[in-house]
């Protein structure tokens, strides 16, 4: 269970590191305020700011370490555990560095970017702790590729069988397969959008959300089947369509869960780069107008 070990890595070693760092930061913060209000310009503020800046650089370095597969500098798992705990500590350290002073300026911009990065990180952590179990359960131990292979076979068998049925059934099933949507855009992936249609007899295509309409359409034909073979085919077709429906549900859910598992990275990473740049400017501008 890799996700559990992330937080409990070596007895939550980095939790204690972070708490230690926070205690030091708290003491530094508390010793301010006599000469001037707590802010980034006192010597304690400079120390807190330096700790924060070093942490940001180190936290960013996780992205580099992850890609160095032959690195012996600690395990990626350990790095990630430290990344989570020290990243959380950074939120408090940077707040103490700022002395709770915010404004419409570059310095608060850097702070806000940092908050976005950390908040998206929290979301990511939640996703990594929660989603893999749900995803695994949804796939019932199989892989997504197996689900798609099953879907492909079901498509092929359904089409083949539908051709043996009445023409409108053939058209309905073929069109339902051709116009089945899966995934798609950001919204469709994250919220299981389903824009499936099928051609119901003569007329324009109708909605086929969750494939229920086509199953119903075929099922309605069953009592009217005149020959035994026709009824058997329809029955078989319904079974295939229902299996297809179940597979599609699993795939949709899988796409959704995987989407939520990854979406935070589209904030976490770009904003990290903006943060690095804003942090540099924050430091430089502070000394331009010392």
């Amino acid at each position, binding site marked *: 269970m890799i996700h559990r070990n992330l937080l409990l890595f070596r007895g939550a070693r980095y939790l204690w590191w972070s708490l230690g760092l926070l205690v030091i930061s708290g003491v530094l913060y508390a010793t301010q305020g*006599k*000469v*001037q*209000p707590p*802010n*980034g*310009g006192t010597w304690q503020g400079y120390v807190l700011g330096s700790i924060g800046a070093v942490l940001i650089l180190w936290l960013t370095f996780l992205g580099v370490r992850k890609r160095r597969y032959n690195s012996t500098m600690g395990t990626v798992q350990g790095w990630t555990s430290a990344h989570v705990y020290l990243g959380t500590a950074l939120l408090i350290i940077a707040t103490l560095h700022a002395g709770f*002073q915010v*404004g*419409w*300026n*570059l*310095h608060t*911009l850097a702070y806000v*970017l940092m908050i976005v990065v950390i908040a998206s990180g929290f979301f990511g952590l939640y996703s990594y702790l929660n989603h893999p179990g749900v995803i695994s359960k949804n796939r019932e131990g199989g*892989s*997504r*590729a*197996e689900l*798609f*292979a*099953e*879907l*492909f*076979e079901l*498509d092929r068998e359904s089409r083949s069988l539908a051709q043996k049925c009445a023409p409108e059934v053939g058209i309905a099933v073929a069109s339902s*397969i*051709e*116009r*089945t*949507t*899966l*995934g*798609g*855009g*950001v919204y469709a*992936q994250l919220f299981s959008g389903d824009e499936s249609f099928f051609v119901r007899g003569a007329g324009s295509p109708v909605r086929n959300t969750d494939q229920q309409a086509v199953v119903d359409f075929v099922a309605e034909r069953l009592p009217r089947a005149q020959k035994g073979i026709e009824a058997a085919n329809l029955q078989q077709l319904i079974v295939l369509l229902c299996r297809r429906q179940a597979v599609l549900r699993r*795939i949709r859910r899988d*796409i959704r869960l*995987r*989407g939520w598992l*990854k*979406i935070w*990275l*589209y904030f976490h*990473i*770009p*904003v*990290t*780069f*903006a943060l690095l*740049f*804003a942090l540099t*400017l924050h430091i430089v*501008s*502070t*000394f*331009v*107008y*010392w």
Partner: protein
Amino acid sequence: MEALLRELHEGPDGIPEYRDTEISGADLTIGSAADQRIQLLGRAVAPEHAVIRKSGSKLELSCRSGERVRVNGEPRSSSKLEIGDVIELAGHQLTIAEAPGGFDVAIELRPNENIDASEFESAFRTDLGQTWLSKRPAAWMLVAIVLIFGVVLPVSVIVMHHAQREVPAWVPGDDFWNSGPLSPAHQQAAGVRCDTCHQEPFVRVQDEACQSCHKTIHDHVSPEHLALTQLGPTQRCATCHREHNEPASFLVNSSDSMCIECHQDSTKKFAQLHVEPVTGFSAGHHPQFKARLLKPTVITAGSTFELEWKTEIADLDKAVEQSNIKFSHTQHLDPDRVLRRGDSKPLNCADCHSLEPDGEHFEPITMENRCAECHELTFDPGAPERQLPHGKPREVVLTLQDYFTRKFSDPNAGKPTRERRRLPGHDEEEQTCSGPPFECAMRSAHAEIENQFTRRGCVGCHVVVDTKSESDFDRFQVYPIRFARDYFPAGRFDHRSHQIQGKLTGDAACLSCHKAKESHDSKDLLLPAMGKCEECHGDRPKVERVAVQCVSCHSYHPQPTVAVEAPES
């Protein structure tokens, strides 16, 4: 277009097997999606990859934007197709064959046997990476925004300011680097021009920037005194005065620590200046109060003399007021002896002591503005309307001589007499003067002058010196009265905020510090010692103690009475 698709597979025994499918429709679409006429799986196959159309009698292949296929081994995005041409896509081979009768085209498909149904996923967009979401462009975009607001605009505005060009107020410039609000006065003075104070990049704000406006401010230690110490150069203004912080009240550093830093070790640091060490406000940490008094020295010059007033610093327990006045607070505050004119109530402190607008000092008490209300300078009970002039001994002599001359020479005045005087040890009989009126007048005047200067009148309050001179004008000289205006010039004290002390108000509040009721002699200083302050104050917040800081009583910058701008040299 009618097409025949022949799908070739190698059977289990190595013999090719085929399956024919008839396809009809305008276009022969090729892709991995389920709605494609020729559905080919594989990661390299787009959901809608290519299309074969009939153009006249020719066949044409065209790929979707960005897609490619190999036609006879050449990567192409479009191509005219001839019989025998081989189209390759993700390992699948499509060969254009001679069309049998009834068909426009025949295609032999040799699927890539290595691709199985699991690659059907590529027919759909199932990953966020396949959407418009992207990390790198988003990162660049955000960096660009930070760059514009954090560098481009500020630097542009700085350049424009240097070029003396107007910048519209709404344009965000280097004020985006502002780390916090300025105090309102500085905000008004500097506006959005950071370079008002930050005159040189990467150099801390220099005192010259502050002094370009604050021209009348003085250093804590004068340059002459500083040269006698080991203090080194004075601190930057910004050491104490920090801007861009909230709340703005922190603009003036009121911390004791900065004072104590130098003053705790004052015997070493201040060398010959003899500054007593201070580490707080309590006994043992702060020197006992010393009063600055005026001390008169008599300088005789022949029969006359002058008083030279010098200041003297004295410990409170030894300090003696030498104002030259004779005055008893006890008597004046005793309701059995003194009552106020008008309402006949006992005197209040405020009847004589009137606080100045600064709340610290009191208006000087003069004969005319305070004493004269009760103490008239009459000298003849028979002429209560006649009073002696105050503060001018020579005028007193002249007034008395004039008065008696008139009295003895006035034919309508009746028999000149000298009224009875009741003096201690004397019981003079009423005498008549039988000589010439002027002589009688001068004799009476002389007697009254002596009386006023030695027994009643002036001598009641003043120190009078009898020079034994023969001339009445030179004989008596009165010591002038002077008080120090400020006994503690290095300290500040707000009498107004001390007018109510807990449950004490009015005179009780005054008398709690100034023991006036017990003072019979004007030599008493009546100033409270530090212990009195400590009853209510300390340097640390405590229950029933009001914390005070160094700056509660002391100013860092010496404040002249009138701030005068130093002439430019």
